């Protein structure tokens, strides 16, 4: 118990450090494509699924909480808690310039509890839906005044964005029969986007200028899911899992305001605020589905995909961008291997191993080119020897975008870590 509490404290400290750096910190920026719309979509996968390039809708891991498919909550046996953080590095190149951005993020928090063990479970979670983290710097020259007073003004424009959409969700899963489960989750989605601009001039008397466009709002979300377990299909003790989860469209009622800080004289500054109006942002529906196969409890192979109707996306505040959004497809293939199941005491047999790859067609078409992502993943699960808790680590490497048509190709490195608690503060299975 003490060890678990100690791990939790370490995890919280770690999260605090990362969160502090990931807020509006100047040192945190991610994909340049997250500048468009309301940020780049974030999938609802846990670190284990991420390690395999999967979403996690078609399989259930007893000791690891999952948000991907509400139906899986019906199979909850233990009280589960999980939280994850991530660090991603983006090296972007447009054929001329190279930039490197890093983004620290809180992936999610989730609490999953059994109401009736293995029959009925609930889940509460907080997770990102989209994430916007970018920073660009451009240099400009402008001819000002005319005639004898004509002058060349050099200035730099700094633009940084942060925030996105987060979801606070509460849901229930029900195992109708031993092999069929369904689930539903309702959520409130919060939009909070900051788009900050600064103009810096190379000389006086021009003063530095700034403004910050803040878009905020909320909406209601609904998710449904089903999970079908088919045991003993090809051989004895094997199992096939089928899962489908549907996210209904979400309409966010948002307001936009422009703020800034004016320095009238040294030490005297004032904030100004201007309401830019209200509007709606429509987040399209999404369907995730997959199939997993357990030849034995040692190995799992799965393939999963999603489809999201981003062509239905609309943003009242940036209607000119709507045409850049196209329907998104994602497909992943992965496997996991749990050698500890054999009871081996070898050092390398103590871990969970996961590997996979995914292809995401992306939700953007810019300059006639789809902004797709190809990603390879590898994961390691570290089990607690005297409990069912674990730490999952995921490493990924991939490419996003293209350099065609003066666009940007990003090389992405990522590391994610999640702590999966499977007993603390809840109950031990032996007590039941």
């Amino acid at each position, binding site marked *: 118990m003490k060890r678990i509490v100690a791990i939790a404290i370490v995890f919280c400290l770690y999260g605090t450090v990362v969160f502090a750096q990931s807020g509006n910190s100047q040192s945190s920026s991610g994909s340049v494509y997250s500048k468009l719309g309301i940020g780049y979509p974030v999938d609802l996968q846990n670190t284990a699924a991420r390690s395999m390039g999967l979403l996690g809708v078609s399989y259930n891991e007893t000791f690891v909480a999952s948000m991907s498919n509400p139906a899986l909550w019906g199979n909850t046996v233990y009280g589960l808690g999980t939280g994850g953080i991530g660090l991603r590095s983006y090296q972007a190149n447009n054929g001329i310039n190279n930039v490197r951005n890093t983004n620290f993020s809180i992936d999610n928090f989730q609490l999953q509890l059994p109401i009736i063990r293995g029959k009925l479970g609930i889940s509460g979670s907080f997770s990102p839906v989209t994430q916007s983290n970018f920073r660009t710097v451009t240099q400009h020259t402008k001819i000002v005044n005319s005639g004898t007073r004509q002058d060349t003004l050099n200035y730099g424009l700094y633009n940084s964005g942060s925030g996105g959409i987060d979801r606070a969700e509460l849901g229930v899963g029900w195992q109708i029969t031993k092999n069929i489960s369904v689930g539903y989750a309702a959520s409130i989605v919060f939009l909070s986007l900051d788009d900050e601009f600064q*103009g810096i001039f190379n000389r006086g008397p021009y003063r530095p200028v700034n403004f910050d466009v803040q878009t905020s709002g909320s909406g209601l979300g609904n998710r449904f899911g089903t999970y079908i377990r088919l045991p003993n299909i090809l051989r004895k003790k094997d199992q096939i899992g089928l899962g489908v989860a549907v996210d209904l469209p979400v309409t966010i009622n948002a307001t936009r305001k422009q703020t*800034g800080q004016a320095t009238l004289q040294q030490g005297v500054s004032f904030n100004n605020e201007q309401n830019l109006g209200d509007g709606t942002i429509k987040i399209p529906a999404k369907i995730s589905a997959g199939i997993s196969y357990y030849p034995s409890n040692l190995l799992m192979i799965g393939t999963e995909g999603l489809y999201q109707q981003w062509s239905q996306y609309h943003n009242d505040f940036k209607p000119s961008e709507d045409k850049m959004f196209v329907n998104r497809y994602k497909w992943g293939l992965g496997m996991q291997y749990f050698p500890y199941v054999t009871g081996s005491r070898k050092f390398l047999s103590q871990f969970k191993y996961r590997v996979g790859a995914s292809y995401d067609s992306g939700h953007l078409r810019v300059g006639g080119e789809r902004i797709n992502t190809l990603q390879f993943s590898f994961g390691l699960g570290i089990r607690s020897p005297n409990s069912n808790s674990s730490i999952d680590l995921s490493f990924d490497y991939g490419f996003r975008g293209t350099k065609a048509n003066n666009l940007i190709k990003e090389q992405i490195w990522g590391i994610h870590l999640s702590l999966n608690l499977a007993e603390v503060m809840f109950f031990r299975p032996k007590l039941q």
Partner: protein
Amino acid sequence: MQKSKDSIFQSLGLFSFTLSIIVLIAVSGCENPGPVGSGLTNSGADIVVDTLTLAGLDTMRVNTYAGGRSYFSAGQYNDALFGNMSSIGMLEPLMPSAADTLHSGDKMMLRIILNGAQVYGDSTASQDFDIYEINEYWKGSDRRVKDGIKIDMNEKVGSFTIANEDSIDVDLSSNWYQKYYKYASDSKLTASAKDSVFQHNVYGLALVAQNSKKIIPLNASSTRFVIARSQESDTVNVGMAKWAYSLSRSNESYPQHSVPLYSTYESILKFKLDLSNADIESSTISRAELIFYQNDSAMEQSLQSEPSSVQRPPEKNIKLLVGDTTNIPASIDPGSPIFTGSYDQSDGGYHMDITSLAQQISLGKVSKDQQFYIALSNNGVITPSLIYSDSDQMSAKRPKIIITHLKNTNK
């Protein structure tokens, strides 16, 4: 064995934690933002230069203060553009210090020191002046430009002609000196009372121009009375107790779409600043410049038929003032100029950086009804300027505000 397993778990947990922190620090240190990605969509902001014409410009004629300034003007000049001007210089001597004993046989002179560069008219021509006694009590500090003055023209106290000199000594009449001596030598009066009694009984001197060649600015701090003492064979310098001028102007004739500005406040400009139509936020204003253009061509043309030695005192600055409209001119002369604009010969404009004012207006910290005034500095030198007004809608020389700001292009 169990302990060993725990240790492995803890070690690996610690390992992953440490590894992540190291990667975090290493990668964040490599962050290198740049222009990549800026062209994906509308950048959202750009530096924009907006030019707003200043509407509702009005002229105001103010009878402002003419005494106690650094200079006081005397002379006469007929300016084809700014009219026929006649300025009477007024001054009154102080009593000598207690240590300086005067005698009835002493002689008194007026030592005039003037600023030759600020002469209005023909700087080399001879301007004749007669000096008379003033025939009414006047206060130096309250004296207004257009206030008249009674002069005893029956007896001349002195006369002089000034051409291109910067100083001149003028002998004053013995009768005048005797009046002065009467109070200066009055042993019944204390030293401090002498000045007051003298000023309430003898009203000083007026410098009255006798021809129309120029107006000279007398330096108030160095112009003085000099008494040549007959018995000590030396001189005593006596400063001025008060000084002022009285100006009359007629037959101004300036072109359409132009308005005059006078250092005497006979014409100043007033307007209101409203930036509400500009859609500009205070934090986005990088620079706001208020420009009034001088009608240089009209000013130069009006002097073309004159000798090259004819000049108008050049004015290099204008002042932006705010004041209580119910307390004019006290609230604006001298007032505290909130900004000063400098004349730029290259475009003929007075340029004034009003960035902080524009920011305050955008913040709503300045009332929309706030009255602003543009005036030349009233230091006693008579100086004119001809400013393009806002009446010609097509003119590029209308008064304007150029605002350089960061514009939200995603509104």
